[in-house]
């Protein structure tokens, strides 16, 4: 059973077996990831890239092999297309402040969607403040799908960049990113996809997608906290100015003048999260060993089961009913605030998230302050879904 690989799943909360349905916030980590981190700290503990001694060498090998594993997982042309970052948020900020900021002028437009996580909104608002750029938003419909018809109008001569979420963390919607990218490419607009919620569930092939940038959150794909990947096309990474300045990212420094290092080092200033990178590589290998097909298959079994099961809860309303969805369920229960639901079912061992899930605009659209969100991973079970449903029914009874 895959569950056995995840030590965090095997515990009790308030005396009840843990039902971990908060995977969209952060996933559990397989033992292989934890082992990789420990192995680095115990057997290869050294800084990378700069040493001639044995440990430094082997730490560098582990770190660069991790980059290679990630390149395989994403089918990137080369590991040099991948920059290690803290997470998706940093990846998006990096692109906003380097690639986009260096090109954009007042009045130019950035196109995002109504389904974005705050991490794909606020960096553009900061850029707007800095440059006078304009932020435009692809609208959504009641199902939580993007309104594709509007795109032809939204793309103008002034559109300088498009950044869209691949899979919505709040609603689970899988966006038709290939169509979006095709539209953008027609108009010559570079596209970034926020893949935080996609990589844990879907086979992502950056070459097939033909996106310009793709962002990955390590802690959501069963990897360590503080890890992540920015994929970028080589020509962009070459030409973009650096983000942070410091060690590693330079090749020659005088007080007058500094020559930057080659990509990807140019974007990895300072000592990186070495253990995080190595653990992320282990997560990628773990996922490839299971197989993304198998993960996707299990996801859809769980999705179908859960959709049906939740119908048993009186007064429950699903928010986000897109045709293409990952196993993420946002819902509200009539007469009970999401927070009270969360607190009550926590006492039955069920961990869900409640609130706006860092997507306030989505809930403004629905006129809601937030929702309950159960987000599943391939290691969850139908039995756990039953526990969720039971606990929701009990919460509901309490409020009758």
């Amino acid at each position, binding site marked *: 059973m895959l569950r056995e690989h995840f030590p965090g799943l095997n515990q009790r909360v308030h005396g009840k077996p843990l039902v971990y349905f908060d995977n969209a916030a952060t996933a559990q980590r397989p033992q292989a990831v934890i082992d990789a981190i420990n192995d680095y700290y115990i057997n290869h503990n050294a800084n990378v890239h700069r040493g001639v001694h044995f440990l430094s060498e082997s730490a560098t090998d582990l770190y660069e092999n991790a980059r290679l594993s990630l390149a395989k997982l994403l089918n990137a042309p080369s590991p040099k297309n991948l920059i290690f970052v803290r997470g998706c948020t940093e990846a998006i900020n990096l692109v906003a402040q380097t690639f986009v900021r260096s090109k954009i002028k007042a009045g130019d437009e950035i196109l995002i969607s109504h389904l974005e996580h705050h991490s794909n909104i606020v960096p553009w608002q900061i850029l707007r403040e800095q440059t006078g750029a304009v932020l435009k938003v692809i609208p959504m419909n009641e199902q939580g799908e993007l309104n594709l018809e509007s795109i032809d109008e939204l793309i103008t001569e002034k559109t300088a960049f498009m950044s869209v979420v691949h899979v919505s963390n709040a609603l689970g919607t899988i966006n038709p990113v290939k169509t979006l990218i095709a539209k953008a490419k027609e108009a010559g607009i570079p596209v970034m996809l926020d893949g935080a919620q996609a990589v844990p569930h879907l086979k992502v092939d950056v070459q097939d997608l033909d996106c310009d940038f793709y962002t990955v959150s390590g802690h959501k794909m069963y990897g360590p906290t503080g890890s992540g990947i920015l994929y970028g096309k080589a020509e962009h990474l070459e030409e973009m100015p650096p983000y942070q300045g410091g060690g590693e990212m330079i090749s020659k420094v005088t007080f007058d003048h500094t020559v930057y290092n080659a990509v990807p080092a140019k974007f990895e200033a300072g000592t990186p999260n070495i253990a995080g990178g190595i653990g992320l590589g282990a997560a990628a290998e773990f996922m490839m060993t299971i197989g993304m097909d198998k993960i996707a298959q299990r996801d859809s079994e769980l999705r179908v089961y859960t959709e049906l099961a939740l119908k048993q809860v009186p007064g429950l309303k699903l928010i986000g009913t897109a045709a293409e969805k990952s196993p993420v369920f946002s819902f509200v229960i009539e007469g009970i605030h999401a927070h009270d639901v969360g607190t009550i079912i926590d006492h039955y061992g069920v961990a869900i998230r*409640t609130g706006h899930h860092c997507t306030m605009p989505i*809930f403004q659209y629905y006129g809601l302050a937030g929702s309950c969100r159960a987000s599943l991973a391939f290691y969850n079970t139908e039995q756990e879904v039953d526990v969720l449903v039971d606990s929701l029914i009990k919460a509901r009874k*309490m409020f009758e």
Partner: protein
Amino acid sequence: MTELSKLYKQTILEHNRHPRNYGKPQECTHQAEGLNAICGDQVNVYLTIENDIIAAINYDGESCAISMASASMMTEFIKGRSVPDALQKFDLFCKLMNKNGDVDHIESLEKINTLVTVKKFPSRIKSATLCWHAMAAAIQGVPNATTE
């Protein structure tokens, strides 16, 4: 019955069903919005202060049951008190609800003491204290309050 259900059943749901002083008044002299972005709790507190006495206090907003019950209880408790007294009660309530504190009863807070059970669910303490912060902010002429 767990402490949680006790709290909900005996106090919180009662105030949710029969909220005291709910709704935005036509007029008021002071008001503030309390916002816990992380929870999505939002409470407005409206005060009419006359000669340093809180003549009227109302609330509305969109929040969880704990937050709404706490606001209902607070308005009932604060109405008619002097401003310094209300602020002192605010301080006492903060002491009572301090996650790391060991105070679990403060006589002068009367019925408000029942909320101490919320301390067992630390992530919800902010729900209980938000309206109090908003009240204090309103008195001090600050338009926004948060417990974060």
